[in-house]
């Protein structure tokens, strides 16, 4: 490539980067301004940053509750998937019985299922079992949502672990159960980390199930809180921006520190044909 061509392509890429990242910079600025300041000059730097807006949103506007709910619900769901999913994936990788491949194929196909096909019936189920508008109900739904994909991805990870390792453990007198938790589980850690990151981000951002199954303010997750806040403070854009920042900051901080791990986690399973 000639240098001239390179400069043109580079310029295009810089403009594209502004397009992708600019909105975040803008919202970050907004989150430190008051709405009056914003209407005067929407694009200026926050020269007198209002840091106090963050504690106001966090405490007075209930974001601490939303944050805690998100953490409990998503954390619980991710744990359930980690335990159930890795055990099942390990089974599909190392054992089989007559219908095991068929069962795996059905589980694999259900990755394609749109959430709408379960939305209404899950609503009925949760009502029947008095789990509607509870954290535990949403947690169970979340765990099930990501379970098929997690099993699919983890299976390939367990398959890549050599059989000898397992045999050696058994000779040393380990039961299947112990061999799994003491040896396979730790060895599969890269895969488990990747899938946990993916599940965490997907569920942290989930909205449809949350808005359908949760109705009381004290149980809202962050996306619901942001949505409600937008509805009530539609004109107070800079306050909304502060709320948005609280919802995305945890993930963005982790991303800045572990970007490669994150990219690996978010794309795991989609790279192989």
């Amino acid at each position, binding site marked *: 490539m000639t240098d001239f061509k*390179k400069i043109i392509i580079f310029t295009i890429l810089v403009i594209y980067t502004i397009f*992708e990242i600019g909105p975040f910079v803008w919202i970050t600025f907004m989150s430190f301004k008051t709405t009056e300041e914003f209407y005067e000059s929407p694009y200026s730097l926050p020269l007198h940053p209002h840091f106090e807006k963050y504690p106001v949103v966090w405490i007075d506007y209930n974001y601490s509750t939303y944050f805690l709910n998100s953490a409990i619900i998503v954390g619980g769901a991710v744990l359930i998937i980690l335990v*159930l999913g890795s055990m099942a994936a390990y089974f599909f990788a190392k054992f089989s019985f007559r219908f095991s491949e068929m069962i795996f194929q059905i589980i694999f196909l259900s990755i394609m299922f749109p959430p709408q096909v379960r939305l209404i019936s899950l609503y009925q189920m949760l009502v029947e079992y008095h789990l509607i508008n509870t954290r535990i109900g949403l947690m169970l739904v979340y765990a099930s949502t990501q379970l098929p994909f997690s099993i699919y991805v983890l299976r390939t990870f367990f398959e890549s672990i050599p059989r000898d390792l397992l045999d050696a453990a058994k000779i040393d007198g380990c039961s299947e159960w112990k061999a799994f938790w003491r040896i396979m589980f730790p060895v599969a850690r890269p895969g488990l980390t990747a899938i946990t990151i993916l599940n965490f*981000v997907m569920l*942290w951002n989930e909205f449809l199930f949350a808005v359908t199954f949760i109705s009381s303010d004290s149980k809202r997750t962050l996306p619901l809180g942001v949505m409600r806040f937008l509805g009530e403070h539609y004109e107070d854009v800079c306050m909304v921006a502060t709320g*948005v920042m609280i919802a995305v900051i945890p993930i963005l901080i982790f991303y800045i520190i572990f970007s490669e791990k994150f990219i690996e986690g978010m794309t795991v399973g989609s790279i192989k044909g």
Partner: protein
Amino acid sequence: MKNKKVILIFLLPALVFYILFILYPVFRTFYNSFFKIGAFRIKYVGLKNFREIVKDEIFWKSAKNTLIWAGASIVLEIGTAFLLALALFNKIWLHRFFRVAWFVPVLIPYIVTGIIWLWIYNYDWGVLNTILRTIGLRNFVVPWLGNPKTALPALIVGTTWMWTGFNMVILLAAMHSIPHTIFDAAKVDGANSFQIVTKVMIPLLRPTFSNLVVLCFIGKMRVFDMVWVTTEGGPLWSTETVATYIFKRAFKWNVYDLGYPSALATLWFIVIFVISLILGRLIKGSEIYEY
């Protein structure tokens, strides 16, 4: 005997959970679609719900919108992602930074993407109209999300902004996994760089393209949040998607019937399933190039 115990311990918990929270609900939705389900009364109606769908203009409008969304996204997201990946593949300056930066929108909730674009399209102070006013194109200033003609394309730009980075990362990884000797061989045979891309690289990336097209398609067939936070399907159903319509019929309109939206969900499920399978087969093609 021992194998049975293994099945029980390792597979059973996940399997029970899967049947309870995925298989059963899916079949219950299928079953529901043959009933009218009020708050207190359930009545079998046979295929009546499906006959109603055929005549339901809002459904057809929303199906059309959703399919346009999916089609446009496949071209825009994957096309842009391919060009970007190509630039990074050639190790342009700052390519590591670009890769990490473009991926950021993938990580944020759709709700936030919605709010961001709601503000970018704001009539008075939004970024787009500000730019148009600054460069003197005042005639093009419109309320982007308030106009039935521009609302859907405007939202499609939003989801493209969000997902292009994801497609780019996967294409880039696939490009790197092609052995470099293949490109060298093509060069020795006298291929120019354009030919190398079109005749060597794209055919080799076909399985990856196939995966990305199916993923993009499935993702857009369920678009809900983005619409819900910005337009709620308006103006004049111009951004109504099947997902928002099912949600409205089930939980927002006071029609007290869960049967009809279940029928919608069942039908849409079948549509997604069939089209994904066809798309996957079509693009993957019969010839798989090995390397």
